[in-house]
């Protein structure tokens, strides 16, 4: 290859590199634009969302927003910033150089790296024959590349896809909502305020009426029911039964109490355990509870506290009912009567709390006596089997228990069989077991000179005595000859080497 040919080839490759670089720059610009545009579209709804949140959080401040329209510049500014950042980020990902430009042509012409190879080999000062041949081989492809037009890459997606339109529409709607929300919100809040005022007034008025009493009594029943549900989950099954019994008694009594209170006081006194009615009802109810507790000595302190709460609630109801009864009062005398009733209720509550404390103490003593006398019957459970679950939780489990023990199905599933690996294992090991990797470390150490104590040679004298029988190997003569020849030959090799 002559120098002129090499120079010509270099010029041609330079031209190709320029064209390729230009093309790649365009591609990079388009790619960056695309990326930036996508990121900007995605970020469009961000600022409107902030505006909307601000509007929701503080309506009064939004009025200022309204007065300061430059706050809405963010609608344009943030997407613009995002676009610029993403553009430069995407553009900086690609570094364009000469090799990349030539590789573009190689790829386009399927020339198997011939242009890159030629460019590389042309810069070698003393190319080998194969390198020269490779340069020669690339000539035709360089010619082709000079005449070839690189395909112009179109934008991979339309400017505005449905998804992009959606985000734009979302942003627009959010902005509109953020702008309009102060007006909508203010009206809504005034309505609420007005409604709140009305409702408080109404409540105070209703609290004095009989209808309100009925409502209150119903509410208290509901509260009780919910309270009992909560307690039932905590208490034992035996105490639950007791509770349910008392509830069964209490439930139908409350609507009765309301109706009785309206009719006559005497009936309320008769239904002492039903709580609502006269002031003496609380005392009578506590005495009846004590009787119930005597009947069921297994009940615990929990139930006592629960009954306490119930009584308190009942007192509340009774106060309401007392107001309703009015003890002969009319609705026109309500404020004075209500004060009186409140004072009476306070006194009753104090008395009742004292009585309930006494009842609790008595009950504890009884419980202690029972526990010392014999085992609690309600604590008796089915014989324990070896299941891993808690025994005696249900009747079904007790039925299954045979008292003989032994692992159940549940335990079997948790046994050794369940611990086996779930991965397929080859039934044979391939080859011999590997003892593992060994690592040998060689440390270089300099030889150290050591002092050796001098020892004087001594004459040990000649050793006397018979050596004994030295057995000779019964070698055949020809073997002796061969061995002699072997060693003689070997020594001769050594001497020649030396």
């Amino acid at each position: 290859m002559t120098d002129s040919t090499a120079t010509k080839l270099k010029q041609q490759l330079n031209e190709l590199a320029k064209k390729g670089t230009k093309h790649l720059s365009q591609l990079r610009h388009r790619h960056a634009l695309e990326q930036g545009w996508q990121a900007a579209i995605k970020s469009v709804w961000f600022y409107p969302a902030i505006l909307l949140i601000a509007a929701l959080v503080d309506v009064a401040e939004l009025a200022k927003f309204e007065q300061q329209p430059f706050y809405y510049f963010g609608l344009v500014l943030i997407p613009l910033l995002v676009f610029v950042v993403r553009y430069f980020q995407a553009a900086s990902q690609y570094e364009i150089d000469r090799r990349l430009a030539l590789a573009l042509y190689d790829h386009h012409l399927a020339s198997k790296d011939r242009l890159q190879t030629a460019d590389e080999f042309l810069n070698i000062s003393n190319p080998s024959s194969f390198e020269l041949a490779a340069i020669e081989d690339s000539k035709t492809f360089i010619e082709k590349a000079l005449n070839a037009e690189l395909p112009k890459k179109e934008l991979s997606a339309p400017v505005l896809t449905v998804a992009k339109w959606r985000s734009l529409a979302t942003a627009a709607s959010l902005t509109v909502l953020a702008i309009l929300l102060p007006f909508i919100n203010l009206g809504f809040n005034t309505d609420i305020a007005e409604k709140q005022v009305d409702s408080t007034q109404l409540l105070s008025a209703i609290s004095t009426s009989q209808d309100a009493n009925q409502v209150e009594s119903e509410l208290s029943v509901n509260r009780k029911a919910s309270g009992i549900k909560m307690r039932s989950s905590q208490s034992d099954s035996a105490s639950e039964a007791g509770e349910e019994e008392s509830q069964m008694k209490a439930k139908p009594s409350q609507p009765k109490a309301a109706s009785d209170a309206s009719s006559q006081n005497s009936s309320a006194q008769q239904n002492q355990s039903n709580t609502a009615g006269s002031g003496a009802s609380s005392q009578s109810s506590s005495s009846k509870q004590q009787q119930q507790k005597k009947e069921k000595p297994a009940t615990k302190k929990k139930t006592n506290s629960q009954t306490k709460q119930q009584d308190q609630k009942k007192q509340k109801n009774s106060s309401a009912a007392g107001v309703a009864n009015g003890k002969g009062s009319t609705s026109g005398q309500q404020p004075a009567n209500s004060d009186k009733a409140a004072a009476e209720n306070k006194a009753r509550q104090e008395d009742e709390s004292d009585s309930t404390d006494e009842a609790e103490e008595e009950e504890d003593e009884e419980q202690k006596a029972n526990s010392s006398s014999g085992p609690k019957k309600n604590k008796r459970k089915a014989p324990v089997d070896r299941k891993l679950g808690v025994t005696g939780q249900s009747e079904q489990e007790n039925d299954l228990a045979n008292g003989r023990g032994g692992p159940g199905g549940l335990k079997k599933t948790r046994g050794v069989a369940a611990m086996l690996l779930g991965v397929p294992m080859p039934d044979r090991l391939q080859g011999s077991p590997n003892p593992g990797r060994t690592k040998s470390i060689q440390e270089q150490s300099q030889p150290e000179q050591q002092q050796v104590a001098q020892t004087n040679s001594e004459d040990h004298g000649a050793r006397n005595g018979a050596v004994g029988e030295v057995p000779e190997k019964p070698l055949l003569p020809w073997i002796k000859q061969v061995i002699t020849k072997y060693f003689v030959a070997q020594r001769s090799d050594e001497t020649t080497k030396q």
Partner: protein
Amino acid sequence: MEQHSINVNEQAEKFKHTFTQIKTEVSNMMVGQDDIIEGVLTALLAGGHVLLEGVPGLGKTMLVSSLSKAVNLQFSRIQFTPDMMPADIQGTTVLTETESGGHELTFQEGPIISNLVLADEINRATPKTQSALLEVMQEKQVTVGRRTIKMDEPYCVMATQNPVEQEGTYPLPEAQLDRFLFKLVVGYPTEQDYHTIIDRTTSGEKVEIAPVTDAETLREMRDIVRSVPVPEAAKSYAIRLVMGTQPHSEYAPESVNAYAALGSSPRGIQGLMLAAKVQALLNGRFAVSCDDVKAIATPVLRHRLVLNFHAQANGVSADSLITDVLNHVPVPNTVS
């Protein structure tokens, strides 16, 4: 300069012609399996050794024996068995009778000292015996006692192993595997090939393999292969591929990190380059391209990947990992 170019063209043409001749001759005996024949020839011309893996009856042994006849090389076959000792392969000193009636110790060369060695069922021998091949495969010499014997070029070990019958076998250690340039997996023939096999082997027709080249020509061809230059892009790509097989390296895909215990060694890149040079010459080019490297990556790298337990449990093969590496590693100077 022009003269140089003409010479190179001639050399490349001669290389291609000889290659095609050998392939055609071997194909007379070996039906189908073009990829395997090309692989074996590529390894022979690149100066490497080949490990042929396949179930019995696919013609692995016949391929190697046919090749030895076609290239007219000194051929020896070693049937590996569990009781075989290194001395059985390398040779030993034996007592012989002289003409004069005396006796002397002489060195009896083992079958390993040849040009083309067929190590049949290599995994049946113990690691001790397998290790006897290490020196000869890497350094092309055998040391027995105080005697070191240099092998004549071209020297090539072609080993076969059966992947199915693993009982009573000893898998080749990594050091041994790494010394093979290619691991070629021999598959079943196609339907059309079966017809030809029946006609050729069950009739009275006798197929004779004629020698089409010799050791000297093969040596020249090896020199030509080593003369092929490798541009920077192809070098970078080969390096990236080898690094891609090494777990937790820069170019390793997730699958390699998860399933590979060991990746390819630097021997792998030597093998990649030599085999890619042969590919370039066969494709009529004077320099290696990235496509050449890609084409021979699987047979060069598959036996250099050591898979971990997770890979074995999940049925992940070395080939699938190499495919992942090829898909993951970018070709240098490409516009994505």
